[in-house]
């Protein structure tokens, strides 16, 4: 196989994969262990600009930083690029705000076993959004390449398919074996928000359960906002250094947001609110009802606690906690 027969995906690469450009940014990023407590409003206002490329941690409706995603909509951020990686409810919220105009797609529109979002589908069928196709592993590895400080990483995925044709990957050959690979360009998001179980004020974070791609997302992203169920003392981090999942130097802001993944699932804390998620899918069918719902749920709630209270408050949270811990049927 000659190198001149190698194919390239024809779609747009939204973020520069250049390792030296990223290094120049990271060189200036503070690595001093200083307190980074912030608020949802301040973090989104100061760390996210219109036009930035963003990524959301967790897995769509599992361990997601809902408060930050709401705030992005509330502050009317526009023309964002979005990493549609394991995105479900987070995608749905951003669509409600029409926040992004370009999207790397691995998984969008759907909410897994719950069905598809009519509003997200309309948005993505409108022709207004610039799109590039990838896969879950491809986006995971693009983040990993960035976290490693590389501009690309090889993978044996996407080859031979239209997913490759409509991607921005390029075929390359292994210099040792001649094996064909898809070269995946590193993805350095401008901004990422990740919800965790515990963090100290410096941004050292711990999570429970599966980590999805957050270990790499936190390292690949230029600016990182952490929402956490609980702030813990730094001594607690030092007592179990092996469990530090995200080290402080990745993090720009830390915000305590109890029940912060609601209506999503938070492992060992509370299950997803399936009724609430069903309501979204229902109201999206009717544009007027949808507008009212978004206004009520996002624009008219001043704080995340307001939003929780609107949706059953502590009582509902306790119910979801019982469901998560499987003590609801005892």
């Amino acid at each position, binding site marked *: 196989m000659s190198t001149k027969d190698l194919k390239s995906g024809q*779609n747009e690469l939204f973020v520069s994969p250049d390792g030296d450009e990223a290094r120049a940014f990271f060189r200036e990023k503070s690595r001093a262990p200083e307190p980074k407590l912030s608020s949802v409003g301040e973090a989104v206002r100061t760390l996210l600009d219109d036009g930035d490329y963003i990524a959301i941690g*967790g*897995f*769509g409706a*599992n361990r997601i930083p809902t408060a930050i995603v709401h705030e992005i909509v509330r502050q009317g951020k526009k023309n964002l690029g979005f990493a*549609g990686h*394991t995105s*479900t409810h987070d995608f749905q919220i951003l669509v409600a705000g029409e926040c992004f105009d370009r999207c790397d*797609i*691995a*998984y*969008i*529109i*759907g909410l*897994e*076993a*719950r069905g*598809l979002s009519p509003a997200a*589908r309309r948005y*993505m*069928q*409108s*022709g207004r959004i610039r*799109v590039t*196709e*990838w*896969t*879950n*592993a*491809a986006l*995971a*590895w693009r983040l*990993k390449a960035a976290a490693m400080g590389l501009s690309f990483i090889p*993978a*044996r*995925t*996407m*080859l*031979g*398919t*239209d*997913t490759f044709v*409509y991607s921005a990957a390029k*075929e390359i050959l292994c210099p040792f074996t001649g*094996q*064909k*690979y*898809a070269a995946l360009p590193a993805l350095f998001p401008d901004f990422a928000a990740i919800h965790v179980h515990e963090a100290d004020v410096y941004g050292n974070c711990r999570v429970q*359960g*599966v*980590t*999805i*791609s957050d*270990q790499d997302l936190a390292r690949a992203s230029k600016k990182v906002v952490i929402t956490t169920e609980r702030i813990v003392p730094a001594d607690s981090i030092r007592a179990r250094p092996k469990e530090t999942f995200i080290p402080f130097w990745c993090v720009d802001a830390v915000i305590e947001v109890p029940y912060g993944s609601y209506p999503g*699932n938070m*492992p*060992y804390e509370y*299950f*997803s609110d399936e009724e609430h998620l069903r309501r979204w899918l229902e109201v999206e069918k009717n544009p007027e009802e949808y507008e009212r719902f978004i206004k009520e749920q996002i624009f008219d709630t001043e704080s995340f606690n307001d939003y929780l209270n609107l949706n059953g408050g502590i009582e509902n949270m306790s119910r979801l906690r019982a469901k998560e811990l*499987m003590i609801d049927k005892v």
Partner: protein
Amino acid sequence: MPDYNPIELMICVASRILEDGATVVVGTGAPCAAAMLAQKTSAENLCIMFEAGGVAPKLPAMPISVGDSRTFHKALHAGSMPEVMETCQRGMVDYCFLGGAQLDMYGNINSTLIGTDHRKPKVRFPGSGGANDLASLCWRIISMTTQDTKRFTEKLDFLTSPGYLSGGESRYEAGLPKGTGPYRIVTNMAIMGFDQESKRMKVLSINPGYSRKQVQENCGFELLWAEKLDDTTPPSTEELRILREEVDPDGYIIGR
């Protein structure tokens, strides 16, 4: 003979494909049910994995998401998405389950869109998710799907996940790992495999109540036929009992 519906049939048939001691990545719904049923019948030591990182959980209920708490409930490992995908890429995962809106004679799958304009499709679907990855990297792909001429189509609107691509050796020439590919398509009407040379879809077995003619009429391309065509063994009373009482007692998937 016990009474059963098409989804119950497909789950029972698919569960029998999974041998003891194998590894399988599943999604939500019927594939997860098939893997759970296999564990409770012929494949006690089947290792179930989810792409978000859950490995060998003791599933307390059907997951709603491949990343929810249930996918790593009392699991042997709660890992990460790259870890699961890299385990597939390294050749340690035997089976995966895939579905889609369209399927062609080489087992290629479309889960991206209907239409011709990529940016403005007639109908947009979720896209690959992990499907292309699993189809590329696991040894054997299994699909469970209702069969009709729209779904089983001559030409996909979009080739999301690789089957045998254009047949023959094209899958491996594209760079995909040797020895991998679509293995079984389990429909409401029949069980298909693939011809070793041409890599075209070949009917191996016809389900109770269906004829060869019906199977072909509900397929948008020409099917090959095994020389010795089997009759699909219907779900046993015991399989149905376990499926209904233990695997999906709430009937979320089997609809009972």
